């Protein structure tokens, strides 16, 4: 047993469970491939993972890095822990939230927004595919505007009061 563990790197149950999953996966893949289009299916299966891991994720990480540089987020001193003072709000997250939400909506609905669905959509429903691009742009504009509004309010509220101590001085 110890020998198996040393050679294999884990207990026999680990091997057994993985073998079970590979068996189910083999059966499922065989069922899919029976219908043909083997290369196309494999390309989509591996392509989805490669596209996400090696293109999409590095791309949005780089965009976020660019955002951090342009807003100077990393150069700002870290906020003081447990400080009673209201910290000055940071611009970066007021850009991140609307940007991420807009990007997710585009990522999910790009066939409708960019018109890839238009042929099938018109064919199936009898109606032209229209309005999705406009709706998405309106949502983006709304998100960025709302975020800017919240940011402005937060900046104003975080300003030190213009009339501090002076008022509390007893007037002569």
């Amino acid at each position, binding site marked *: 047993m110890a020998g198996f563990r040393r050679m294999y790197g884990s207990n026999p149950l680990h091997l057994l469970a993985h073998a079970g999953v590979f068996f189910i996966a083999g059966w499922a893949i065989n069922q*899919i491939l029976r219908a043909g289009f083997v290369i196309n299916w494999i390309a989509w299966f591996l392509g989805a993972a490669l596209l996400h891991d090696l293109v999409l994720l590095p791309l949005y990480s780089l965009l976020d890095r660019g955002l951090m540089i342009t807003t100077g987020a990393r150069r700002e001193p870290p906020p*003081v822990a447990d400080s009673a003072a209201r910290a000055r709000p940071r611009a970066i997250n007021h850009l991140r939230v609307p940007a991420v939400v807009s990007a*997710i909506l585009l990522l999910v609905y790009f066939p409708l927004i960019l018109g890839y669905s238009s042929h099938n959509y018109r064919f199936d429903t009898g109606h032209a595919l229209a309005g*999705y691009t406009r709706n998405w742009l309106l949502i983006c504009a709304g998100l960025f505007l709302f975020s800017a509004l919240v940011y402005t309010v937060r900046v104003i509220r975080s300003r030190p009061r213009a009339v501090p101590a002076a008022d509390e001085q007893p007037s002569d």
Partner: protein
Amino acid sequence: MKAPRLPRLPAIKPPPLPGPPPGPFRPRFWRSPLRGPWLTSVLGSILLVMIAVVAVTGLISHSAYQPDVVKGYNAIVGPRGDIGPLISLPSDAPSWAYALSQGAHVTIGLIAIPVLLAKLWSVIPRLFAWPPVGKPAQSIERLAILLLVGSGLFEFVTGVLNIQVFYPWHFLFVRAHYYGAWIFISALALHVCVKFPTVVRAYRDQGVLRPLKADLANTKPEPFRPGGLVSPSPATPTISRRGLLGLVGAGSLALLIANLGESVGGPLRRIALLAPRGRVWGTGPNDFQVNKAADSVKVTALASDPRWRLTVAGARTVSLSRPQLMAMTQHTYELPIACVEGWSTTQHWTGVRLRDLAALVGASPDAFLEVHSIQPKGPYRHTAYPASQVRDDRSLLALCVNGVDLSLDHGYPARIIIPALPGVHCTKWLGSMQFVEA
């Protein structure tokens, strides 16, 4: 004679393993101060609940197509080699049961996408773990992870494109999505077992919710462990953990609002700005959503021909014109059309009960029903229904909707409408019905 003693060779030391190449293979490349076992555990736990719902509702939808009813008519994933339906709606389920189940499948699948992306982001350093292969256990674990990530993304991508009727691939969506789900479910079950101790340890060390209390100023990296997810050189945080989870939640909320209206209807339909079937075509009695318009399956001329007759076969065969069908006892029920793509719409349907038609041709209550559409092309032209559905009072051969004749797009001259059945099985432009004794 004694063999001469060979000189002992000096022990050869294996050359030291080369260090990881520069770039993402070096742990110091990854700087996010938020990555760590707690964050991944939280995202994974949320995702697991969502995917469990999506998997169960997906299997319910598979059995709602009744792939095991006669002749493989309904077996769209291929009749050979499939396992039987696992989870089914009860036969006396309310009429909205399939609409709810499939609406949940699509909606929860959509709102899981931001969580999935965040989960994959949180573990991306593991993709570049160095050395890439080690002991056999490590290697087959990585292979299982490839199956998990590959099938997971495959399921989400194919599902998302299918609801938008965009098919940039050559394989059959239904078959690939169904069997892809089995790879995903099995690989995920294994992943949960393998990672369960890690999750328990993360929750025990950090508290399940405690890290959410920390604002940006108090956001500290999780304790560093070599080979783990925590960066050895974390950067200054620019967002708190609760901020990151809030960001993910905002993405999910946006998808929820953008899509839910096509399943729920009412005022929500007006704000479902990106839902593929969220648009409102008009206020007329026939202006609700259509899956396949009459023109798209080239049935317009055939369906509007006044010589149309419905052939109903059982112990005897009759041929009925539309006025003859209208002269039979009519029943009205409020029933949904619920598409596998997740949208649904509930309308008032009027027509002849299927069991009245069965009685008309002398079929027994145990007979199942096969129907054929007059549409010359397209899938789902032939469908079979079990006896339990034929016997249901609410199962209709619908002739009218909302008090007026069916429009051509909604199946004029006659269509099937059955409670809690996937929309494509509510066959339109009916040509013949055959009650078959079991």
